[in-house]
C-alpha cells in the first residue's frame, strides 16, 4: 500500500444535470477540494448546493462531466473492487436488511472484504452487543445509525464517507456518534462528512468546506473559517445604565478606550462582551444569507 498524504484531490469538478430536454443545470461548477490523510473534513452547504452530488462522484456512484478527481490514489470513475475495499460509506438514512439481525448483517457484509474487522468486536465497539440478535426493523433510529456506521467501518477503510450521519438523531445519541467518529480519526482514518448541522461540523471537523451553487466558497478550520477570528467583532457594554454595542475590526482598542471612559469604580466595564461572528453567522454570510435579520434562513432559496 502506497502512503499518500492526500486522500482526496479534486480540481475543476463539473457535473451537469438535464432536468428537461433543453435545460441544463450545473450541479457542480468548478469544484476544488483537498483532503489530507487523517483529516476530518465537513462539507457544509444548503440543499441543492451539490454536497450529495460531490459525495456520489467521490465514491464512484456518479460520473462527472469535467475535472480531475483522485480518491485514495485512484480515479473513482475507474473504481474496482480493491479500491472499494479501502473505502467505507455510511449512506443517508437507509432501511435495508429489515428482516435480518445485526449480527447476521455485519457477518454477511464482512464476507465482501479482504480483511474485515471481527464482527463481534465491531458490534461491541458501536455499542450494539445487546442488540446483536435483534432484527434491524426493530432497532431505534440511533441503533440503526450505529449499524450503518459499523457497516461503513467493516472493511477497515482508509477513507470513511458519512452522508448526513446524524440527521434525525436525538442530541445524546448524536454526541455518542461524534465520539465514535473522533476515535476513528484519532486512529488514522480520513473522514469526509457531509452535514447540515453547524454544531456537528464545529465539534468534529478539523476543516470545513462550505459549498454554494456547486463550488467551494470557503474552506478552513471551523475556528478561523473565512477570517471569522479576525473579522469584525461586536463589542457590547453598558454606559450610564444604557446598553450599547459597536461593530469594530479592532475590539481591543475599543475595549481599552472604554476602560478609560466608561469603567465603573471597580475598573470593570459593566456588561462587557466581545463577540466574533459565530460559525453559523459566517456560514450564512458565505452562502449569501444575511444573518440576524427578520425572516429565517429557510425562507431564502
Amino acid at each position, binding site marked *: 500500500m502506497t502512503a499518500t498524504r492526500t486522500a482526496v484531490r479534486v480540481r475543476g469538478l463539473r457535473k451537469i444535470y438535464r432536468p428537461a430536454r433543453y435545460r441544463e443545470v450545473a450541479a457542480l461548477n468548478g469544484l476544488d477540494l483537498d483532503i489530507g490523510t487523517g483529516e476530518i473534513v465537513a462539507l457544509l452547504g444548503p440543499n441543492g448546493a451539490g454536497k450529495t452530488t460531490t459525495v456520489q462522484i467521490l465514491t464512484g456512484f456518479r460520473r462527472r462531466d469535467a475535472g480531475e478527481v483522485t480518491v485514495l490514489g485512484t480515479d473513482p470513475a475507474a473504481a474496482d473492487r480493491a479500491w472499494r475495499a479501502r473505502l467505507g460509506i455510511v449512506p443517508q438514512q437507509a432501511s435495508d436488511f429489515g428482516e435480518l439481525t445485526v449480527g*447476521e448483517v455485519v457477518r454477511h457484509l464482512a464476507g465482501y472484504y479482504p480483511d474485515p474487522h471481527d464482527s463481534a468486536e465491531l458490534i461491541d465497539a458501536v455499542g450494539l452487543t445487546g442488540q446483536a440478535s435483534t432484527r434491524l426493523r426493530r432497532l431505534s433510529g440511533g441503533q440503526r445509525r450505529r449499524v450503518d456506521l459499523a457497516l461503513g467501518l467493516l472493511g477497515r477503510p482508509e477513507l470513511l464517507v458519512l452522508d448526513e450521519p446524524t440527521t434525525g438523531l436525538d442530541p445524546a445519541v448524536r454526541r455518542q456518534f461524534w465520539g465514535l467518529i473522533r476515535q476513528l480519526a484519532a486512529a488514522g482514518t480520513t473522514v469526509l462528512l457531509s452535514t447540515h448541522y453547524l454544531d456537528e461540523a464545529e465539534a468534529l471537523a478539523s476543516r470545513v468546506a462550505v459549498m454554494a451553487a456547486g463550488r467551494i466558497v470557503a474552506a478552513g478550520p471551523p475556528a478561523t473559517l473565512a477570517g471569522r477570528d479576525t473579522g469584525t467583532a461586536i463589542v457590547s457594554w453598558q454606559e450610564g445604565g444604557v446598553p450599547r454595542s459597536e461593530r469594530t475590526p479592532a475590539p481591543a482598542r475599543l475595549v481599552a478606550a472604554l476602560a478609560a471612559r466608561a469603567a465603573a469604580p471597580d475598573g470593570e466595564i459593566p456588561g462587557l462582551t466581545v463577540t466574533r461572528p459565530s460559525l453559523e453567522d459566517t456560514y450564512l454570510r458565505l452562502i449569501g444569507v444575511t444573518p440576524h435579520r427578520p425572516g429565517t434562513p429557510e425562507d431564502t432559496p
Partner: protein
Amino acid sequence: MTAASSTPSSPPALPAPALPAPALPAPVRPSPAGLTPALPSLLRTSVSRGRLEITSFFRDRESLIFTFSLPVILLVVFGEVFHGTIGSTGVAFRQYFAAGIIASGIMSATFVNVGASVAADRADGTLTRLAGTPMPPAAYFAGKAIGALAVAAAEAGLLLAVGAAAFGLRLPGTASRWLTLAWVFILGTAACAVLGLALSSLPRSPRGSSAMFNLPYLVLSFISGVYFVFRDLPPVLQHVAALFPLKWLCQGLRSVFLPAAAAVAEPARSWELGEIALVLGAWLAAGLVLCMTTFRWLDRE
C-alpha cells in the same frame, strides 16, 4: 432552527461518549508490504448472497404467505371446479391443470417475486449499500437466482404434494422423466428470475412494481395453458403465448407429470422437449444480456 448558538471563542466541550464500549479496533493493520489479503471470490459471495436472500424471504411473513398460499388456493378451488377429460386422451383435465398451476406458481415465485424484491431493494437502500462495498456485482444477480430457485422449489414441492394427494397428479415414474423435470425446472426458474431482474429497472416506485410484474404474469397464465387446454385457445393467443416462457414451462411439466397418451393434446401432438429447451434457454440468455445492460444500481439522475 434548533441548532444551539455556538460561540466563536471556545469549541463546545463535549462529554466523553457514553458508549459502553471499548475503543474501536485500530482501522489500519500494520500489514507486511506486498501481502494484501485477497478479495473474496465470486462463488463465495454469490452463495452468501443466496443464503441471505432465502433467509430474508422466509422471514418476511406477508410475502411468504401470499406467495405460497395463492397458487395452492387456485389449485384447490379450480381443481374442484374443473371436470372432464382432455379431448379423446382420457386424461383428466384436473391433472393438466395441476401441472399448469405448478408452472404458474414457479413463475410467480421467480418473475414476480424477484422483480418486486429488486424494486424493494432499490427503495430501501440495499442497492446503494451494496454498490458501495467490494461485492462483485454479479454476486447480487446470482444471489437472486439462488433465492428464486429455492423459493420456486419449495413452491413446486408444495403444489406437487397437494396435486398428488387430491388431483391425481403422479410423480415421475422414470429416471428420464426426473431428469426432464430437473432441467425444465432449472431453466424455467432461471429464465423467469432473470427476466424479473431485467425488468426491475423499469418501475419508478416500489408501489408500481407489484402491478407491473403481476400484469404480464396474469395475462400469460391465462393464455399459456394453465387454466385452459392450450390447443383449445384461439390460434392468435397460442402464437402470442408461444413467444414467452410460461407456455413452454407448462408444456415441459406436463411431459413429466401427465401420461404419455396426453401428448396428442399438445399443439404439435408431441411434448417438443427440444423446442422447450431452446425457448427457455433463449429467454435466459436474453434476460442475462438485458440485465447486464439495463440494471441500475442507483436512482435515475
